């Protein structure tokens, strides 16, 4: 393996500050929390823009109201998504320093452009939300503001995906040439993007269903727009999840064969996780379908629980995938885990 790992730096000489197993649990948990809110932000923004446009075309005020609700929730969740992201970034930086730093710097300029892109997108989201009533007679401009924010939010995940895919392929680093080249240089990128975007849309639909379902269950009367948002959420959640079953397989088949086979029988844990995730997804679809037919308390609770489990299994599988890809490199390039081995002498 030596010839493959020449670009992997020796690990930082200071030891990893906690038990690796604990950090792996933390990276899975913190990443799931982060990504769910990212999903909310992306899909609620897309939902707001789509519904506002549909409302303009069909001259339907209910749709406009639904869109306004979506934009309100999107602008809140984006703030939470960003702060939650600090946790998994910390974990990945500490556990996978040798891989993640290299993959980050290889797309360094695109990586820093995330800052400007997101500042602009978030400011646009506030403008979009706070001018909803004021700009009723400037609808086209208003929609354009939302559309710009959405376009940026659709683009940024690609930068993150390139980074986390690139870190799995150290043998391809030498031939990678910046972000745009990397989009087609590494396998998996577009399959991951599709899987992620569909997950976002489904999660947003699901969010509407759960949020207003919960509100109703607490005894509040839903406004017509809120009721419509809830029903729309169920539909989006259901149909997108059905498509996701296909997208998930596309992703699975983009992995290199040795890794794919781990999920298809060669590794008990990975195979079980994959089977479990498919069963849970089908259960979720059934729950959403039932919830779409009638307002059932059971379907509500069952889909909420299934959803949480799916997120957990997906997060876990995603981590195991990274471990499987990196295993040969981790064996050849040990991490600094022990305080006693440090040579801490100073120059003085």
């Amino acid at each position, binding site marked *: 393996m030596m010839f493959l790992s*020449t*670009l*992997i*730096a*020796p690990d*930082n*000489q*200071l*030891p*990893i*500050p*906690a038990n690796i197993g604990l950090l792996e649990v933390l990276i899975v948990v913190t990443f799931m929390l982060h990504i769910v809110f990212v999903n909310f932000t992306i899909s609620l923004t897309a939902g707001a823009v789509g519904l506002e446009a549909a409302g303009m075309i069909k001259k339907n005020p209910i749709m406009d109201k639904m869109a306004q609700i979506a934009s309100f929730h999107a602008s*809140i969740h*984006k*703030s*939470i998504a*960003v*702060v*939650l*992201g*600090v*946790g998994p*970034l*910390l974990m990945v*930086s*500490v556990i996978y*320093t040798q891989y993640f*730093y*290299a993959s*980050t*710097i*290889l797309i*360094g*300029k695109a*990586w*820093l452009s*995330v*800052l400007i892109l*997101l*500042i602009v997108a*978030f*400011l646009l989201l*506030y403008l979009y939300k706070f001018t909803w009533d004021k700009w009723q007679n400037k609808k086209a401009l208003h929609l354009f503001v939302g559309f710009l924010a959405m376009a940026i939010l659709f683009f940024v995940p690609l930068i993150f995906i390139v980074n986390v895919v690139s870190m799995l392929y150290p043998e391809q*680093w030498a031939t990678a040439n910046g972000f745009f080249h990397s989009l087609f240089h590494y396998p998996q990128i577009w399959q991951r993007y599709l899987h992620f975007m569909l997950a976002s849309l489904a999660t947003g639909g699901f969010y509407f269903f759960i949020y207003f379902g919960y509100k109703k269950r607490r005894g509040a009367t839903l406004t017509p727009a809120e009721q419509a948002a809830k029903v729309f959420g169920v539909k989006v959640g259901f149909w997108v999840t059905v498509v996701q079953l296909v997208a998930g397989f596309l992703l699975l088949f983009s992995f290199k064969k040795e890794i794919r086979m781990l999920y298809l029988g060669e590794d008990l844990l990975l195979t079980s996780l994959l089977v479990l995730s498919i069963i849970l997804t089908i259960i979720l679809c059934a729950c959403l379908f039932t919830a779409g037919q009638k307002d059932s308390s059971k379907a509500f609770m069952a889909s909420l629980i299934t959803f949480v489990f799916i997120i957990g299994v997906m997060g876990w599988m995603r981590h195991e995938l990274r471990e499987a890809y990196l295993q040969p490199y981790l064996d050849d390039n040990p991490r600094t885990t022990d*305080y006693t081995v*440090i*040579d*801490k*002498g*100073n*120059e*003085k």
Partner: protein
Amino acid sequence: MNFPSVDYSWFGNGSVIALIAIVHVVISHGVAIGTIALMVTMEYRAVRTKNAKLDQLAKKIAKWVLIITTTVGAMTGVGIWFSTTVIQPDSIGALLRIFFWAWVAEWAVFITEVVLLIIYYYTWDIWKDGKAKLRHLKLGMVLAFASWLTMAIITGVLAAKLTPGLWSETLSFWNAFVNPTYLPSLGFRMFLAVMLAIALLSFFIRWRVKDTELRGEVFSVFGLWGAISLPATFIFGLWYLWAIPEEAYNMIVWSTGMPENVFKLLNGVAFAILVLFLVWVVVKPKAVPWLLSLVVMGASIGFIGEFEVVRESIRKPFIIYDYMYANGLLAKDREKYDEEGFLTHATWAKEKEVTAENMVEAGREVFIGQCITCHTVDGWRSKRSLTKRMDGWDEEAMKGFIPTMHNVRVAMPPFMGTDEELAALAAYISTELNGQRTNNTQEVSAK
């Protein structure tokens, strides 16, 4: 050179981090910490004096705090981390490992702060009477505490870079966190944050609030906070100066790039303006001149920018004092690199050995590995641009100077590498400078 490198050639790699950091410090100190303290005090005063106008003004400020901190504030905060990962990976990598649990705690507090801020703003008109209003006010106080706590944690990390104290010996987290400048720099920063917030807000209050009664109310809140914060900033500042290493203290004026008398004059005048402004706010709160508030705002942003530049510069040549140099090289590796070569140990170097054919290319790798964190080839900052700094030098002169430069230029880390690598570096710089090698022995005038 454990990692690949990025070159912001004209702007300079160091300037990228500095720009993001200064914007962040203005917002985190001035808006997230200082303004939140003032805003909650305004709400408190509004409740005590049953002043609905003051209450609504506080709400308006809360809206802007929300917008600014969750966009530019949050992203530049993450941005310092993003940019250091790209530009100084070894340094941030080390800091994350030393302060891992502090960062985990910081993360938890950040989430709390943002969630509280969201609830605080969006419940303003829902929790508006009686007990509900008191609950809202209490929430505001918890929010102010949470925002202060983020500073109390990160200051441990920042202060340790200059004065790691016992950490260099023990490698213990608590020795690094509670280091010799922790308390003075925390005190200095928190009161400075309030001063900055007063300066930022005063201009907008003076400009946007037409009602002089209301304006007077706001300025009396500012006056009270200012009367505490200005002397406190001064006292903690002196303590801070007293606690930093002597070598660092001697570099303060130099690091601002100003001649000493200009430095003293500018800072003295700015301080005098601040005192004048505060006296005005306390004595005649209804009649604060807008021009004065504008000048105070500009001076305060300038001051905090200067403070950050100084703090980052005076620990040079180190980035973590006595442990890691500004270019990410460890102090203890010097002998190894001098004997075995720097490039052989540089994972990402394209050339691993210096030969007669690859002198310039190998020199470029040395430049990327040891100089590019701070220097540019021909960037806009003349102090950092090698073609400006070494104009007129030939290779022999460079080879004579570089190995001893850290003795003359105290901010420079020592060169680490073999004589061949030194010659290669000189060959590279010379090629960038003159378009060709200058390895003849012509006379040069060293600048």
